């Protein structure tokens, strides 16, 4: 016990040992704060993805502060370090232009918030659900379960379509009927199918748009509104029911028609393709 007391007294009398002790204490406290404080940071009304970023920033700041203070306690000249860091920064800056661009783009994306985690987006030919919005990139899960990493710089420079930003969306269906059909009757039938479908919104009203006289058919578009959850269901069920209604009412959906003439002044003649030899 006396020996231990003597050793401690000798250590405390030694300036280097004292500094080392203080540095270790600072390091221990700093490490503890770095581990526990970021998790407890909470801002009301901030989205989870932004909160995650804020906590990361707090963690890095605490770590850097702890590191610098520890070095200072150990007697390192921070001026020299800062000088070296300045030179290193220039070198790294040239090498890390892309990283810096992605980082800054990420900040702009967070501020602008064109989409959030869970939204379905289209960007650069990739469509899928946003898994995370990170500092350098956005992770997207495609509909066939592939993970695509899109750099934030690309997101900022490209057209991004957010399919789930608004609660409802329109389903457009292109159709064609034979020239012999009555357009008014076709319109009445398809709109009745839309009215009878409870997941087609009554308002905004379904639209019947006549697109023109096609090469082989009268072309039109039926547009109905529905919620995102029912989008695929509507797209399938509407086509199925319209086909059934057309069949029940004798409405023909034509094949492409072509007229063939043997001579420049000849009458067109009927051609029928039969199977066999």
């Amino acid at each position: 016990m006396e020996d231990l007391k003597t050793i401690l007294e000798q250590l405390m009398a030694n300036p280097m040992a004292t500094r080392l002790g203080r540095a270790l204490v600072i390091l221990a406290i700093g490490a503890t704060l770095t581990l526990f404080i970021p998790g407890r940071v909470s801002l009301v009304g901030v989205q989870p993805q932004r909160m995650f970023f804020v906590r990361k920033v707090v963690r890095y700041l605490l770590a850097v502060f702890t590191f610098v203070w520890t070095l200072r306690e150990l007697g390192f000249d921070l001026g020299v370090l800062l000088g070296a860091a300045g030179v290193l920064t220039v070198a790294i800056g040239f090498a890390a232009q892309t990283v810096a661009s992605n980082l800054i783009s990420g900040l702009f994306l967070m501020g602008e918030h064109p989409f959030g985690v869970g939204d379905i987006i289209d960007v650069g030919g990739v469509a899928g659900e946003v898994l995370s919005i990170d500092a350098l990139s956005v992770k997207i899960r495609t509909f066939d379960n592939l993970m695509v990493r899109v750099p934030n710089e690309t997101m900022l420079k490209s057209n991004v379509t957010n399919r789930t930003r608004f609660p409802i969306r329109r389903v457009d269906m292109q159709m064609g009927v034979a020239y012999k059909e009555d357009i008014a009757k076709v319109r009445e039938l398809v709109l009745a199918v839309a009215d009878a479908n409870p997941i087609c919104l009554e308002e905004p009203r379904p639209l019947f748009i006549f697109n023109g006289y096609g090469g082989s058919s009268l072309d039109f578009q039926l547009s109905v509104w529905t919620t995102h959850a029912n989008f695929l269901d509507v797209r399938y069920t509407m086509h199925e029911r319209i086909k059934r209604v057309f069949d029940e009412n004798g409405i023909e959906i034509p094949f492409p028609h072509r007229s063939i003439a043997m001579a420049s002044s000849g009458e067109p003649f009927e051609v029928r393709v039969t199977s066999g030899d």
Partner: protein
Amino acid sequence: MTVWWGAAELADGKTARVGIGPLDCWIEHRGREWRSGFETVEREDAHVSRDWPTDARDFSALDLVSRAVVATTSGEITIKPALADRPVVTRPDHEFVVPPGVEATIYVGSPVWLQLFVGPTTTLPLRELPIVRPSDTWFGPTIGDGELCYAARTSCRLDRAALPDRPYRATTAVTVRNNSDTSLTIERMKLLVPRLSLYTSADGRLWTQDAVFRRDQGTDFASFEPTPGPPAVLAGAAPTEISTPREDVTHALVRAFGSLLR
């Protein structure tokens, strides 16, 4: 109108059927398991029937079949009506105009849900669905800003005696007060049905709390105010409150959108 709701006993191993309008609800009790399934049948709107119990039914032929396991083997089951779980947007068949300074009470219908409760408590239904699935619709100033609702057509009847018998619809007496100096043309109204209580009259008709749409001077908005208590039409008739509001009413006053009432 015959009452289709209420508490009953269904013994173990038995099947029952309740018919309301175009919907048949089939229920089967097997120990702690309850099975329910539904079927749409073409028949008159006012139809109400019960087969309690009835012959066993092939549930694979029914729609929306569901099985549930409960804590006890008790055969106590309650069938209750409930109002819609979203606001209902009603549109008059024809343009309906309320001149300045005029107050009009119109009767509008909204769809009714069927709820199944097993056991003595009736707080959380085992199963619920609309008797006639109403169409979805959007209500709001733009397609990006608004709310998903159900759609209902109304004749905006002024005469209560002319109301059709439909056991799957609840009637709301809506008083429209135009306190402004311009005519109020009603194209559609959003009834905040989840905030209303449901009552029944002696004849088995379903009524909600009364509601008031009030348009004041100098505003395009019309406010929706549920009237506390049973509907006036049931005054003195000892009305029975069948179900309470789905949503807690913290503010009785809700603004409708000006572009929809002018």
